[in-house]
């Protein structure tokens, strides 16, 4: 949708499963740099677009420890309010000693025509040891992932790309790190391990919860691994990394997905692919060998997946590889910011997989559509549903009159996952991630219920 005038159906106007602000994406990226700070040049309501959206998702580190707002009200707006940023920025730097400060503004302030970028540049000259960047949020924009990639670009712009690159090193750009819990740390560890398998050491992962100085080491790597969450700013990133070898990858999820991830990087690094193929076959067989005897448990279920396009492509690939029947997919991000259906189909094709002919793929489904898709399936079958807190909440909130005939199992994944938290370092990426997901699926469908026990007992 370019403008509100392009909206013509109720679905167009309906609240989406991933109806997030660009500001939320800016928050996620900033939160993922441990010594950064988000300065919101906003009114009070914008506070709820940031830390509040992740507060229940990340129980390891509350995002409010690295954000503040300039408390703009109507009176300030009339008088011009960009002068407020400086005192707040300096006072907060003094408290937090941040190495990087991201300034984001609300559109209603941008409407006044204040030259905020220039103001931020001026303020940066008054804060020692802290780099500052600015991202506006004028609509239309690419929402969550636009904000996320915007921060990445601002960070990359502040790096010294004139340093000599080390040939056996890689940096990861655009990893969607949303919380400091062990599951996401496990994914970062998987990225490093898979890149190691491809023959390279990982200099830095942007983003991974590491410090700003670690992120800034990216130019030392000859190979820049570009994750699909960079989609909205891919060309800008290409221009910044310049002569470095930029390698686009899909998420390393599932057997084919993980194998391709390693092969793609190995090919760029000139590593022997035959050895990698042998390793991948052995890893695949190790997981599938354990899973095959349990696969029958999943056969009675239809599966529905709601996730952003890269994650959905990975998870659906894995499900298909495990032999289960996926009948509906919701690509959560707004306006196809991550490529939507075309990107999803392309990943499946690259993995050599195909959805059943009767499967439905919906882009940016509204929560109303989510409900409809799931309930109609639950009327005819047992259904396993993978989705974020938002999609699963719709199903948890069904009224007694709406409750369907069959049971459904709910598995929380993606952002936000307010009810799923990890103690163990359980990844989604890599062969270990495939095994972990197979375990989750089996446990979900075999979870004992009180009513079952009653009949059995």
């Amino acid at each position, binding site marked *: *949708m*370019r*403008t*509100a*005038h392009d*909206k013509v159906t*109720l679905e*167009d*106007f*309906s*609240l989406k*499963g991933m*109806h997030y*602000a660009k*500001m939320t994406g800016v928050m996620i990226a900033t939160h993922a740099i441990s010594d950064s700070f988000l300065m919101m040049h*906003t009114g*009070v*309501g*914008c506070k*709820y*677009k940031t830390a*509040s*959206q992740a*507060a229940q998702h990340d129980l390891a*580190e509350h995002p*409010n420890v690295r954000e503040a707002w300039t*408390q703009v*009200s*109507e009176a300030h*707006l009339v008088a011009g309010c960009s002068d*407020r940023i*400086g*005192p707040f920025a*300096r*006072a907060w730097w*003094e*408290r937090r000693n941040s190495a990087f400060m991201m300034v984001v503004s*609300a*559109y*209603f302030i941008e*409407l006044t025509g204040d030259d905020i970028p220039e103001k931020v540049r001026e303020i*940066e*000259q*008054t*804060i*020692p*040891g802290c*780099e500052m960047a600015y991202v506006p949020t*004028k*609509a*239309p*924009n690419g*929402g969550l992932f636009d904000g996320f990639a915007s921060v990445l670009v601002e960070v990359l712009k*502040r790096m010294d790309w004139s340093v000599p690159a080390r040939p056996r090193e890689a940096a990861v750009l655009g990893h969607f790190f949303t919380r400091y819990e062990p599951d996401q740390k496990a994914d970062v560890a998987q990225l490093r391990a898979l890149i190691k398998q491809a023959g390279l050491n990982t200099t830095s992962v942007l983003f991974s919860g590491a410090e700003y100085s670690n992120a800034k080491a990216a130019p030392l790597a000859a190979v820049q691994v570009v994750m699909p969450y960079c989609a909205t700013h891919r060309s800008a990133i290409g221009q910044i990394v310049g002569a470095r070898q930029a390698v686009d990858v899909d998420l390393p999820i599932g057997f084919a997905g993980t194998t391709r991830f390693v092969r793609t990087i190995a090919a760029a690094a000139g590593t022997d692919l035959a050895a990698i193929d042998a390793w991948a076959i052995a890893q695949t067989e190790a997981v599938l060998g354990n899973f095959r005897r349990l696969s029958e448990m999943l056969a009675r279920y239809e599966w529905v997946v709601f996730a952003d396009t890269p994650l959905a492509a990975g998870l659906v690939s894995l499900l298909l590889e495990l032999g289960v029947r996926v009948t509906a997919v919701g690509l959560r991000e707004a306006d196809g910011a991550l490529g939507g259906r075309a990107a999803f189909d392309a990943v499946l094709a690259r993995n050599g997989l195909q959805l059943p002919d009767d499967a439905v793929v919906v882009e940016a489904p509204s*929560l*109303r559509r989510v*409900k409809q898709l799931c309930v109609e399936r639950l009327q005819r079958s047992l259904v396993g549903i993978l989705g974020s807190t938002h999609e699963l*909440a719709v199903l948890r*909130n069904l*009224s007694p009159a709406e409750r369907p005939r069959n049971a459904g199992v709910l598995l929380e994944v993606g952002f936000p996952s307010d009810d799923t938290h990890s103690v163990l370092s359980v990844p989604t990426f890599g062969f270990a991630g495939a095994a972990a997901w197979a375990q989750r699926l089996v446990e979900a469908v075999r979870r004992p219920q009180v009513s079952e026990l009653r009949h059995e007992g």
Partner: protein
Amino acid sequence: MGASEDVRAAAYAACRVKDEAFWVEQERNIQGALGQPCCTLSGIAASLMKTTGHFAVVVHGEDECASCFRHVGPAAVQFFCTGLTEHEFVTGRTSEPLRRCLRLVAEELAPDAIFVLGACPVEVIGDQFEDVVNAVGKEFPDIPMRALHTNGLKVGSQTAMLDWMFETLAGLPGETPRDPSWLRKLTDVAGEMYKLDLRSEREVVTEVVGQIEAVLADVAENRVAPPEDSVILLGLPRVRYDGDASPEHVRVLQAAGLRLLGNYPQATSLDQWRWITWARNGFVADRSLYPKLVRRLEAAGQAVHEVPLPIGVRQSLDVYRIFGEATGRAEAIAEAVAPLAEAAERALAEFRARYGGLRMAYAIRMNNNYDADELAYQGLGDFFALDELGLEMTLLVQGPPDKRDRFEKMFERRGIKLPFEMFLEPWVMADLLSAGGYDVAYLADHCRNEANKAGVPMIPTRTLEPWLGGAVRNLQRFDHLLRELRGAR
């Protein structure tokens, strides 16, 4: 990055001196109140999200602003957004998307009400969107449509926002209450039906069928309690854990022949808001929070009685006493409460004997939310529940230390004479807790990292259970927490 670090350091020092004037001006706006500023769009949207019923909410603004509240709640599927962009704001052509959205919602969903919430940019350009709402409302006369100029520009209080929203909901065309008891009874009968099997005695089957018929008769008659036997609660906490089929206070009221029409706004439906004025008696925690709503209730003939939050033994007993006095059923309520009170008093006495004298930090002014019970009595609603435990309490107040005298006066007004400390930001909490030598702390949930750092067990704000049964469970929880503490030491 043009300047060297030395030059920047010098510039920083110079700017910080100049910034002082800004901060003096900034702090002039801070009153001695415990609430925080709020965005009315965010607050009303978040509150409506939790409300059940067949209504719709249209956020009139950018898509950005449809994420200034969490998308989790029974009403999430009934939210819409006009998704205005720069094109609409610059040209001023905001009416058409709203008109189209309202018509689609009205035609396809036919909700019982539509609420249209404005966003900041809409206010900045002076969009009088109520004109569109009123015009479309005339096309659908059976659907009440309300335009609310919500935004985060006119920084108001959380309580004023709630009062505005509640008054709007209560101002919808009224309805006679529907008797909800048949649904509960039917659920009970369903449980009985589930126990039947092929070997069941004929008499047992006949009895269950008789129960079903009785419920059906109830449905047909809609036996609504008359106003004098009906009560409403406003701003009281929700019962989350109760082993019985209905919560303790509902059972107590029923024992006195009273029917609870709703505990507003907790888990209430749109229907319940439409019959809020039916009851002769209403009980409100901190009526000063809801001047508009209370005015509407009183204008409809309802007697509105002030009650404390029913958290802890003393406060719960006070609320039950007020129920009895206000409705003229003191004896019946006292009789229903007596066994609960005895158990709670006993548990409290045992707790005090075991743990009296331990040091507790009670932090306030740290949360920015829209929960009526948390806002009541300036966030001090739980204070007296913790005070009765015999602990040595200190208040930790987030706010500018130089405004200490204002807070001191406010505490005095509320009869609280305790040592208190002011602090600026949540991340000094670990140091505060360590320095204070506290055994346990009552803190906003986002302080858990700080509490962990200090090694002080914490009770998250507003997680205490209400009523007498809840008080006993709270004591068990504290006991568990403090036993662990003693074990650790």
